[in-house]
């Protein structure tokens, strides 16, 4: 299961994800992002409590990154080791801004 907390203020959006970003939950995040992103120029994804990510989650992140490349910037913060390994293995570390 995935819990998404978001705050949007003056074009700055912070999404805090808790739980698992997999095939089942990825559409939720995709829908939330789709609604929130218009008008946002600074997107921060807080992954401190994200336990797990699969290719379905990566797909959503890639789509969000492509949108934010056009309208501002996107960064991912507080990534745990396990998720970090997935980013490394897939080359996503190079295309995402991970702080």
């Amino acid at each position, binding site marked *: 299961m995935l819990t998404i907390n978001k705050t949007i203020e003056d074009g700055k959006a912070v999404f805090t994800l808790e739980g698992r970003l997999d*095939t089942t939950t990825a559409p939720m995040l995709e829908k939330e992002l789709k609604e929130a992103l218009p008008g946002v120029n600074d997107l921060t994804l807080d992954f401190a409590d994200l336990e797990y990510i699969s290719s379905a989650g990566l797909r959503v992140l890639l789509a969000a990154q492509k949108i934010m490349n056009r309208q501002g910037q996107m960064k991912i913060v507080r990534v745990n080791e396990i998720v970090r390994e997935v980013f490394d293995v*897939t080359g996503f570390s190079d295309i995402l801004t991970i702080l």
Partner: protein
Amino acid sequence: MKKKTERVRANLSFNIIGAIVLVHVLFGVLVSFLGFASFTEAFKREYETTTYHMADTATTLVNGDHLKAYLAGEETEEYQRSKRNLNLYCKKINVSLVYVIDVDTSDYGSFVSVFNSVNNEVDDSSYTEWELGHKRNTTNDEYRRKYRAIYEQGSVCETVYRLRPGDGAHPHITTMVPVKDSAGEVRAILCIQRPAREIREARRPYLRNIALSTILLALVSSTVAALFIRKQFVAPIQKVSDEATRFAKENTKGEPLGEISKFEEFARLAHSIDTMETDMVSYVENLTTFTADRERIVTELSLAGKIQEASIPNEFPAFPDREEFDIFCTMDPAREVGGDFYNFYFVDDDHLALVIGDVSGKGIPAALFMMVTNILISDRTRMGGNPAEILRFVNEEICAHNEAEMFVTVWLGILELSTGKLVAANAGHEYPAIRHADGAFELLRDKHGFVIGGMEGVTYREYELQLAPGDRIFVYTDGVPEATAPDNTMFGTERMLAALNEVPTGSPEQILKKVRSAVDDFVKGAEQFDDLTMLCLEYKGAKAQEETLMSETNKTELTLAAALENLDTVQSFVAEALERAGCPLRTQMQIEVAVEEIFVNIAQYAYAPETGDVTVFAEVSGDPAVLTLRFSDGGIPYDPLARQDPDIGLPAEERDIGGLGVYMTKQFMDELHYEYRDGRNVLTMKKTL
């Protein structure tokens, strides 16, 4: 345009004038020829007669009784006198020769000269006088025949014409008359050779006059004809042509042509052109108005169609966050707007209303009626109550204001998602088709009430239906069973059920597409006559329902439907196996990723668009402990490991997500092996814990 008109004129005038000139010339030649021939004939006859009289007169100067004696050598006083007289006569009558010959009557091949008078001055000739007794051969057969005629056949006169002599002599005629003795016997022939110059000289002016007058007549009549044609034919045609050209260019009514010619044909043509212009101008005006009206109506209809379409839910998936059911609907009006409708909405969090209806008639009236009915039903449904009450209320409302006396058939069902209980009522609508669990789609012959809008005070009966997870319900309007092929056979519910049962486990969208393509194949391009609307719902079970297989903890093998909603079950199954062996968190996550990627692949692609099952085997053994995972499915043969790895060095804009899942699986697992065995895809993975 102008060039064409000029060519018409040239054709008309020149062709007719040319024909007239030609006829005149031919006529002139004919007249000249006939006149010349008869003139020549008459002249010749006159010439012959006068020459005959000259010759006949000359015979009186010769004594026929003494000719033999002259030839015997007696040049007597009488001979000399006759000779002098003949010479004198020859000069007086203006002839070239007067001579008397005695022809050898045995074969008329020769003769001897008796008298011979020459007068070279008359015709500028150079004859020499023959001596008495001069013997000559007959000139030719013509002379021979003529001599014989005079001697033997009693001819009084013979004439030889030499109007075109070939030997350089001048044209002349030779007239012969018999010289007789006192007993009446022919003794010799007297010939006069007379120049024929006069014939030719008389003929020349005659010929010239005829030719000149013919040419003159041709010229005059051609000019008159040309002027006449120009005025009476070409000018009216030119006027008509100019007016037609102007009209074609400007498309406005011009001055009427009126009376352009005294000839009836031209007058009628002009009149027709005038009438045609008037008619066409008014026709174009009508057409313009009509087209503008039509365009406005088309625009309004298209807008109305959009409004109608937007009045019912048409975005799918409609409720992606609801796991209990899947729904799909289509509505294809036969015209821009239709009288069919479907609808679905939550009455409360646990109750989903499903509606399908069909208004009598088609087009705009049906569409308006449909909008009213749809809104009434949905408003009333949200107020609560069961389907029978709702339909009764809607019927009363509609009957109270049903000026057009239209009616609508409605099927209304309310599904309780937590229990699968469906309560429905049918107001004259088609039977729904239901598929329970592993069975086939069948028609549910529910109890029909009367159509809505038909009669006040009607009550409706409702019925209950229990749906189990995997059950599907399909409702439709009569556009489906009554779709008609070109040979007038109808699609019918049998064919509809057959189409449904081709994909009994398909998603609602797949099921509707199947039915639609079956209908399309059946009607073979015939025009869609009725609106065609369908709704299909798959009940997937209550939200909290768990797979019963989960509790069987000791199993190392699990078989279940290859569906995304079973992903958690599979993850729990694998996690349990790992838990017993004790496994670092990081390794566990890597295994979870592999399980998800492989399982999701199978769920999404192995059986698409159908569904099927998948068997997962999990076992931990050995020291150090090694996990063996095996996925096996009966879907399309496919080796995921054969897929080319994605290029993970590309920037975000060029990255494609395809193949990433399998790539991660390869990275995280120690060993991977694929084989296709006994009709199943078998993928085995190993990972040291």
